[in-house]
């Protein structure tokens, strides 16, 4: 089964501050260990301040672990320097933000296009917009789109790079239930139809019913790592 594990996290610890520099040390993540298989829809669950964002930052190559090992597709991310991390983010990671973070001066199409321009083997931006159901809104600017539409553009932008891993930070956090459901449905499809590993960070336990795996974090520690054999459908979520 070892070869099926696409993402391996072993004893990852993240400490902020440095006692040697007389700074107060705060351990945000302690000995986190888990692994994820390719194509899984994973939910990282935990209350505010549990260490979700820290874990997301490490998974996305935005921050480095103090100790431990993080391997994605056989590559040891923990050994990468800043330049390699930038390349890692560019080629392997797709990121969906809670507040979409689209470039306000670019149209929906252009927002997707600039991401595609970063990598050689990318998808067609137009087709990506079609995939997220926004083909007709390609010429619109973010401010002319609803929150749900903006998040769809953000997903298209993340996917167009054909990333190994799709990381989503509270993707439905700023959306109403109906729009949230449609976004979650889209991410579900990405995982299942495109066979992409999708990791969603949330504090909303209700969403996790559609997950293949639920990793729960509390006080910087992984308290559970559950594999759901029969996940429910998005429509079954009680918002």
């Amino acid at each position, binding site marked *: 089964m070892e070869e099926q594990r696409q993402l391996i996290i072993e004893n990852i610890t993240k400490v902020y501050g440095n006692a040697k520099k007389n700074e107060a040390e705060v351990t945000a993540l302690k000995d986190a260990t888990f692994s994820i298989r390719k194509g899984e829809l994973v939910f990282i669950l935990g209350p505010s301040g549990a260490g979700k*964002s820290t874990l997301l930052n490490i998974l996305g190559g935005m921050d480095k672990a103090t100790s431990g090992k993080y391997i994605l597709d056989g590559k040891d991310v923990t050994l990468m320097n800043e330049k390699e991390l930038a390349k890692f983010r560019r080629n392997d990671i797709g990121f969906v933000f809670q*507040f979409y973070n689209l*470039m306000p001066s670019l149209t929906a*199409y252009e927002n997707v296009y600039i991401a595609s321009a970063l990598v050689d083997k990318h998808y067609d931006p137009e087709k990506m917009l079609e995939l997220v159901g926004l083909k007709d809104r390609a010429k619109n600017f973010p401010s002319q789109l609803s929150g749900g539409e903006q998040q769809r553009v953000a997903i298209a932008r993340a996917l167009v790079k054909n990333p190994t891993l799709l990381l989503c930070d509270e993707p439905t956090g700023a959306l109403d239930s109906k729009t949230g459901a449609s976004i979650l449905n889209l991410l579900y499809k990405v995982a299942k139809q495109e066979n992409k590993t999708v990791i969603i960070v949330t504090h909303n336990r209700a969403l996790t019913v559609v997950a293949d795996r639920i990793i729960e974090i509390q006080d910087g520690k992984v308290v559970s790592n559950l594999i759901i054999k029969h996940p429910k459908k998005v429509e079954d979520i009680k918002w």
Partner: protein
Amino acid sequence: MRLAKSLFKKCIRDIFRNIKQFISIIFIIAISCTLYIGLEANAEGFEKRVNSIFTNGNLSDIWVTINPNLNDFSEMDEDKLYVESVGGENASSETRLYMPSEIYSFSTYALISPSFPTINKPASYEFDDFNDNNFFFVDEGLIKKYKDSTGNTIGLGDSLPVSFQTNTLKSTLTQVINNEETITLLIDSLISNMTDNGVATSLLENILKSNISSIQNLLTTLLNNYLSSESITYNIEVNGIMTHPENIDNGKFSNSYYLLSSRLLLSTIFSDMANKFMPENLVEFFNELKIQYEGNEVVTLLIDEVINILNDENNSSLITQIISLVINDINYSINHKSSTFIESLLSHLYNQIVLIIDPNLDADLVSNQISSYFKRKSNNNLLAVFDRKTNGSIAGITNDITQAKQLTYVFPIIFFIVAILIVLTTVAQLILKERTQIGTMKALGISKGKILLYYLSIMDIVAIIGMILGFILGPLILPHILNIKYSILYQIPALTYVFPFKVSLISLIIVLALISLLTYLLIRKELSYSASESMRVATPSFHLKARKKNIKNTSLMMTFRNIKVHMTKSIMVIIGVLGCTALLICGMGIDDTINYGKDLDLINFYNSDLVVNLAPGLESGEAKEELMRYEGIEYAEEYSLAQTQVTCNNRSINTNIYFISANSLFYKYDDNLGEGGHGDLNKVILTSQKAEKLNAKVGDTLTFNLDGKFESYEIGAIYYAFSTNGIIVYQETSEDFIRSPNIAWVKIKDGYNANDIKEELLANSKVAYSIMTYDETIDQIEGYMSSVSQMTTTIKIFAILLAVVVLINLAILNFNERKRDIATLRVLGFSMFEIASSLVYEVMILTTIGSILGLFFGMPIEMLVLGINKVDLIDWEYVIYPQTYVISFLISFLTALIVNIIISFRINKVSMSESLKSVE
């Protein structure tokens, strides 16, 4: 009330929390105020210091210089009376003899008067015992020059060698001798002093009075013998050291003034004459007298006896002693005002009337009235009428005061305009950032008025901080910088702290009103929205076409989008850079204009190795002949420079008139003037500055007044000259123009050193009064331009400073505005270079547009600045060399590039977790 207090607290906290955001506003307002208030303080302080000298020295309003007619005292009295009468009810006047002289080898002007002056008196002085009969005050400028060149000082009680050109003294005294009235007075004075008032005295009086012409001949011979050398030097003891209102200008090339009692001078001359008395002149006189009295035995016997005594060598020394006693008697009369002759002589020994006019009268009008009066006279002996505006030594400093005042309005205005731009961009940015907060305040029920007041308070407090800094720094820094120039050029009281309170208060009110208005205009729209609208993310109001294909450079694409989306801000940046580039071009363009003009003068006028100021009263050709005798001199050429009044097209001006040979080797301005200009003896040539003042063009007729005669000539050509403005008349045009040359150009043979020849001429030549080498001429012109050069340096420094402030402000605003985008782009995998490119491209595109547009505004600003600084001495032909445009463009461009590259390094410091934060 509690709400207002809370909002005020919040406002103060917000300012200090976001101080980085406001630092540019504080900085630019502080610079603008430092400049404006500093320049105002300088102008106010400088004017006060100058006025204190003018007031303490009781400076005259009008100077009337005449060619005194000492043959006819009544005419002089009449002229003086008229001049006094046109001065109005409260006028006062004094007369004095104004003549060039030398102390050591320094050219000076002697102000000789019968009593200590009350008009144009020393503004401050230290003195030993002195009175009306005995004062010799030298100015501090002379002492400074003497110390600079010899290392020694001049102090009270020192005896200084004062030299006069004898021809000036001779012509003045000859005129006195030729005045029969004076001789009669002299005889009366002599007779009245004799103890025997009987028959012998009466006889002597009759003899003398019937032989006035013989006495005149005797005195003329005595005078000629006494003043036989070129110059005569007297040692006179200094009993006063002063600053004089007419000699504020103590520049390197300005002559010093000294005050001398005419009684002291006459007494010194007579004492000297007594020592050099020659009895043979008297023998000759009595022999002539004897011939006239042939037949009158009593008289002839008496004369024979006198001649015998005079001829007896044993008596020669005795006679000299007797004559000395007589002269000493005259000296006694001089000092004790006991002689009618001496008193009459002293009261008419003047060539200048200085006049303080009634404050209600206009000096121009009075000057014109005086000029007209003399013109009406059959013998027009007026040399010049000057008022404070036209008197060179006064006008120089008055111009500087005017320039100092005008300077306060030129540059600060440009800085305030840029400050407005920075305020506009920053406030617009602030309001965009604070939309949610504005919405929240509205939602909380805070009135629009209070929200407006809150933002007005923020901006006004920020502006006040900047202004206070400017108010403190300006009066402390600027006057000290400009005083470097003033202390070199002028003798004025020490610098004191001046705070222009009124101007500061007015500028504070205007700036606050302006900033409040700008803030109101920018926030007005935002306030009109509902709370929920304000809390929504702003929708950019643009209609752009989305490009689907052919996007080659994503950084460039984002750049163009940002420029279009933030069009107002982009326009402001363009205007800011435009201003900086235009200022740079203006600063360097002024240098170009000066250099262009200076080079033209050096090529076409001051191209000789030496310029020799000649001793007065030389015959035409005399100086040339003398100078050519020197081994190292290859060629010398004389010309005359005079002042005249010129009329054309019903306009009149006072100007220089140059009499130059048509075949001059040195004057080359006419080389390219073609027909009518070059060598046309029937026409005169005019420089463009004077042509403009006279509204004259080629072909017009010009009338000028020369020695009281009016001459009319057609203008043959007009050309631009830098500092040699006036009318050029060929010496060969009319014999009437042949006059005493006062300047000579000298070309030195190869292998000889100009400084050596200069030294040799000064030591040995009788015709060289003062000499300037080519290098010294350049120094002199540059000396004239020192204030302008200082100004251009200031412009250039501030322009670069301005460019840096504007561009840093923009770059920081851009950066802060995009922090979240930058974080997002970093998360998406964009490299620092790609992100930086987008930011740098944007600024560089705007900078390029601004710089290119700025190229067109450089010349108009230069014309504005130089137009304000127009002086009679210099004419500007506005020139900007191509390299100035290139350099200015490059400075703006490179400053923008460097600033942005430096700021781009901050991209790596932007935490990627910024992208995870909520939208503010």
